[in-house]
């Protein structure tokens, strides 16, 4: 197919060269057969070469930008979720959410996470207070202190029923070296593969600090770089894949959020039930 398509072009161009040779120079060799000479001709070739290299580099950079990210729940994130996050599951539960910054999330990201998780539980009827610091206030290595408005809340601590603490950490990061060699060698047709496994540790306690739930939700993101994978994925999404699989490589963070918020809601509901049972078990007059 490729040969048949390229042949007519070659013939046309060679015919053009033949007809354009002036009659006064019948023995002049075509440019490709001419011996290389130093001077103005080589300078022109050099410029062309540089231009070609620049063009190739630009093309390579453009092709390298094509990337497909795939999310895979490793453990915890794909457990069945029973509760409906659209209804009031935590009516009148006073909840404190702690999102300390760490290796995986900086202070800004921790605040954003706390805000989103707070909204998730507020929508389910909880009264939420968020803290972008560690619950153990004395530990400076784990938290960067409280924000101003949060500090005001600490000066007059609101009574809470449950406290949830979210800590992100990187479990593993790997680059498939062979794939990146092939990525360059095949001009991005074979994808360069890198992957990243993370864990979100969730700890839920009651107001007295009693541990109700402790879990670790692990997920993995695989990144395929290069035009080959990007184009193949686009083609497959046109209709060759099932409807559900058309989401592969499209907004993996949305899929992760869906799993994460579902699991978080389920864990908090389980903790709430555990807390209520323990309150019944507690002898009359005991604190919390």
């Amino acid at each position, binding site marked *: *197919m*490729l*040969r048949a398509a*390229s042949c007519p072009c070659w013939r046309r161009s060679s015919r053009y060269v033949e007809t354009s040779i002036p009659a006064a120079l019948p023995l002049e060799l075509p440019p490709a057969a001419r011996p290389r000479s130093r001077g103005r001709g080589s300078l022109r070739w050099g410029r062309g070469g540089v231009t070609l290299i620049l063009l190739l580099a630009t093309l390579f950079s453009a092709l390298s930008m094509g990337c497909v990210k*795939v*999310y*895979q*729940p*490793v*453990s915890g994130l*794909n*457990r*069945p*979720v*029973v*509760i*409906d996050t659209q209804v009031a*599951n935590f009516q009148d539960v006073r909840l404190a959410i702690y999102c300390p910054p760490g290796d995986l999330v900086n202070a800004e990201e921790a605040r954003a996470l706390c805000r989103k998780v707070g909204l998730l539980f507020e929508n389910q009827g909880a009264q939420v207070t968020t803290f972008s610091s560690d619950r153990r206030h004395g530990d400076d290595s784990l938290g960067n202190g409280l924000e101003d408005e949060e500090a005001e809340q600490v000066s007059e601590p609101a009574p809470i029923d449950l406290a949830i603490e979210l800590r992100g950490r990187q*479990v*593993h990061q*790997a680059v*498939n*070296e*062979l*794939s990146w060699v*092939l990525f360059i060698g*095949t*001009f991005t*047709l*074979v*994808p360069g*593969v890198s*992957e990243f*496994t993370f864990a979100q540790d969730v700890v839920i306690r009651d107001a007295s600090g009693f541990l109700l739930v402790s879990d670790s939700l*692990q997920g*993995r993101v*695989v990144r*395929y770089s290069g035009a*080959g994978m990007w184009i*193949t994925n686009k083609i*497959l999404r046109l209709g060759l*894949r*099932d409807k*559900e*699989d058309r*989401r*592969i490589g499209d907004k993996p963070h949305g899929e992760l959020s869906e799993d994460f918020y579902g699991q978080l809601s*389920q864990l908090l*509901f*389980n903790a709430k*039930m*555990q807390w209520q*049972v*323990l309150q*019944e*078990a507690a002898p009359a007059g005991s604190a919390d």
Partner: protein
Amino acid sequence: MEWYFLISLALLPFVFGPDPAPGLRRTRAESRNLICERVTPQTAAQRYPGEIAPARPRGDYVERSVVVCNERVMRPGLRKAQDEAILSSLQELTSGLVATAHAMRPDLADKTWLVETHLTSGPVAAKVAFAVKNDLVLRGLAVSDRTPILGFGDVDVITRLEPEQAYAMACKRYFATGSLGPDHALLAIANLDPRETILHAGICADGRWEWVR
């Protein structure tokens, strides 16, 4: 040009190994049906000798890591989500409950234990009861297959009560009617809300009910 494509295609299998992530070789549903765990090559070599080569004495030339994946026993959607959640972590749930009960009431170690389950699904309740009895036996406790029984009038009254009162009342009636003697202890396993995926446990001994978890 065609050689470029052919060579690239021939190289693809080296890049796309048996990766559990969804992609060209695995659908999203197939990938979500796997329960995976990332382990070190040493751990993987111990668990799967012959399949995973142990690290060389002087170290490997490349950094290796292992993701071990197991397919779920049942395809998602075949069982109710709550049943699936309980059964997929049955061992962990029941051993936790039994450990807590045993630790909270060491004075009941010489009694014969009876197990009762209150779950919405009958088959799941039977599986949970069997797993709990198994855990009790593993701890060296005497276990009976007998289930305490209440009269129709008692059941009629107890089912009208709130759960927190119903368990305590049932326990009193078990003791009063002699269904649960002084040499017996009852471990009741319950699921208190259809939205939760954990189990709770309570002990009934000498007519006194106590939640343990």
